[in-house]
C-alpha cells in the first residue's frame, strides 16, 4: 500500500511537471509505442487462439449447421473492425482465391466490372428503394445479376446474402480481400445493414456501395465503417 501511495505521488509530481510546460512529447511517444506494441500483439494472440480452436474443432469433428444470421457481429479487433474468425462461423472459407493461382476468376472480374459501371449512376432512385435512400442491396444485387452471380435483384441486405449463400458463397476470413467480394457493414441501425462490393485499384482494395444521402453508388475505403462480414464464392 505504501509503495502504491509513493507511486501515485510520483505520478502526480511528474504530471505537475508536464502541466508547467515541460516537454511531454517524449513521454507521450513512449506511451504511444507501448500502446502500439500491445495493439500489434493482439492479432498475434488471436491467431494463436484461432489456430488452437481450429485444431480442437477438427479433432472433435464438429460440423455445425448453416448459420444464416447475416447480421451477427463477430470478433472485434483493436480498431473496432469486425471480421470473421475461423472459430465462430462454421461456413468460413479459407480466404484464399477461388482459383489456385491467385488471379481473378472470370466471375470476380465480371462483378468488378459491373459494380464499377454503376458508380455515379442515378438509376437507383425508384420508389421501391425510397428514392435511393435504401438502395444498397439493389445496387449490389444488380451488379451481381449483371455478372451472372445472382439470378435476381433484391431490395434488402439479408436477401442478397441469403441468395449468395444459396449460390455457394461463403463467409471468408479477411484479409486478404479479393475483387468481387461482397461486404456488409455495421451501421447505426445494426450489424449487416449496409452492403457493398470490393474492387481493386492499383494495389488498393476499396469498396463500392450506395450512399443514401447522395442516392448514388460511391467508391470509398473498405473500413469507412465497421465491417460485419465478407462473402466470397469459394
Amino acid at each position, binding site marked *: 500500500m505504501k509503495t502504491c501511495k509513493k507511486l501515485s505521488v510520483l505520478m502526480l509530481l511528474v504530471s505537475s511537471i508536464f502541466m508547467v510546460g515541460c516537454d511531454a512529447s517524449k513521454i507521450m511517444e513512449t506511451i504511444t509505442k507501448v500502446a502500439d506494441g500491445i495493439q500489434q500483439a493482439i492479432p498475434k494472440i488471436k491467431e494463436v487462439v484461432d489456430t488452437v480452436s481450429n485444431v480442437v474443432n477438427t479433432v472433435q469433428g464438429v460440423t455445425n449447421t448453416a448459420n444464416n444470421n447475416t447480421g451477427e457481429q463477430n470478433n472485434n479487433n483493436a480498431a473496432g473492425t469486425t471480421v470473421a474468425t475461423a472459430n465462430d462461423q462454421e461456413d468460413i472459407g479459407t480466404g484464399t482465391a477461388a482459383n489456385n493461382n491467385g488471379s481473378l476468376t472470370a466471375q470476380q472480374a465480371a462483378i468488378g466490372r459491373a459494380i464499377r459501371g454503376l458508380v455515379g449512376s442515378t438509376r437507383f432512385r425508384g420508389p421501391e428503394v425510397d428514392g435511393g435512400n435504401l438502395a444498397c442491396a439493389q445496387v449490389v444485387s444488380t451488379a451481381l445479376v449483371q455478372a451472372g452471380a445472382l439470378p435476381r435483384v433484391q431490395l434488402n441486405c439479408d436477401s442478397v446474402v441469403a441468395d449468395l449463400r444459396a449460390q455457394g458463397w461463403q463467409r471468408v476470413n479477411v484479409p486478404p480481400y479479393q475483387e468481387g467480394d461482397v461486404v456488409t457493414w455495421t451501421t*447505426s441501425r445494426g450489424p449487416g445493414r449496409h452492403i457493398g462490393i470490393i474492387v481493386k485499384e492499383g494495389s488498393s482494395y476499396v469498396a463500392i456501395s450506395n450512399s443514401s444521402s447522395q442516392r448514388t453508388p460511391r467508391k470509398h475505403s473498405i473500413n469507412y465503417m465497421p465491417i460485419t462480414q465478407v462473402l466470397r464464392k469459394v
Partner: protein
Amino acid sequence: MKNTALLVLLAITFSLPALANWEIKFGKAQNEVGYVNPPAGPEDFPLGPHSFRIISGKLWLADSVRGRIISFADDQSIANEIKVPGLTEPFFIDDFAVQMLKDTPVSIWVAERFSGHLIRISPDGKEMARIKNTGLAQLDDLGVDSSGQLYVGDFGKSVLAVFSSEGKKLRQIPWQMSGLAIDKSDCLHTINFNEGTGHQHVVYNAEGKELSRIEIGFAEMQNPRLWQINELGEIFVSFIPQSGDPTKNVLVTITEKGVITNKISFTNPYYIGRYLMVSDKDCYLVKADYLNAPARSISIAKVGSVK
C-alpha cells in the same frame, strides 16, 4: 486505501491533458464543430469534420456539417473562421486545400459533396471562383499549388483532374486513389502501382509533364496514400501492410531518391476522409468517433516523429 485511490485518480486526471495536442468539442458554439448523428440516411454514416490539415504549424479543419473552414491558434482558440459562401442545403465539405504565400493563406479551394461544386474562396470568405461542372464523380482529395492551380482526386472515376485558379479544366490523368501532394516548386507528386515492379513515386510539373518516376517497391503493400511532402522533398505515404488488414496502417517517410527513412504504425479512425497530418517533425492522427458524437470530443494527437 481511500487516499491512495484518490491519489491514483488525481494522477491519472492530471496526466491526461498532456496526451492530446488538440481537443475539439462538438456543438454550435464558435469553437465547437458540427456533427450529424444519428446519420441522415439509413445507409449513411455519422458525420463530422471530414478533413484536417496542419499548415505552417497551425491546425486547420473543414467543419463539414457547418460549412466553414477554421484554423486554430496555439492556445486552441479559433484563429480564423471562413464560412463557405453560396452553400445551399444539403451540403457537406469533403476536403479543402489552402493556397499559401509563405505563411499566409491566399485562397482556399473547397469541395462540396452534394452540389459537386469546387469553390475557391478568399481568406475573408469571398467567392473567387466556382466550378459547377467538374465532369467528375466524386471530389475526394484536393491539392493546390502556389498559383492557385487545383488538383482533384476522384475515387469514383479513378482520375486526378487539374483546374486553373480560375476554374478551367486543364487535364486529367489516371489515378489509383493513392493520394497527392504539391511541392514548393508546384510539382504534383502521386503514387502509382505496377503489378511487376511495385509502387512508384511519380512527379509531374505544373504543366502536366512527367518529370520522374522513382521505384519505391513495396510490392506486397496495399492501399498507398500520399498525404504530404515537406520542404526537403520527402514524401509521407501510408500503406496497409502485407497482412491486408485495412485498420493497420504504416506511414513511411520516403526521400527524393526513394529511400525509406522512417515508419510509424497507426490505426485509422472511421468516417473521416483526411485524418493524418505531418508537421515539421511529427505525425498527428485524428482520433474521433462520430458515432458517439457529441458525447466524446475530437482529439488530434501526435503518433510519432517523422525524423
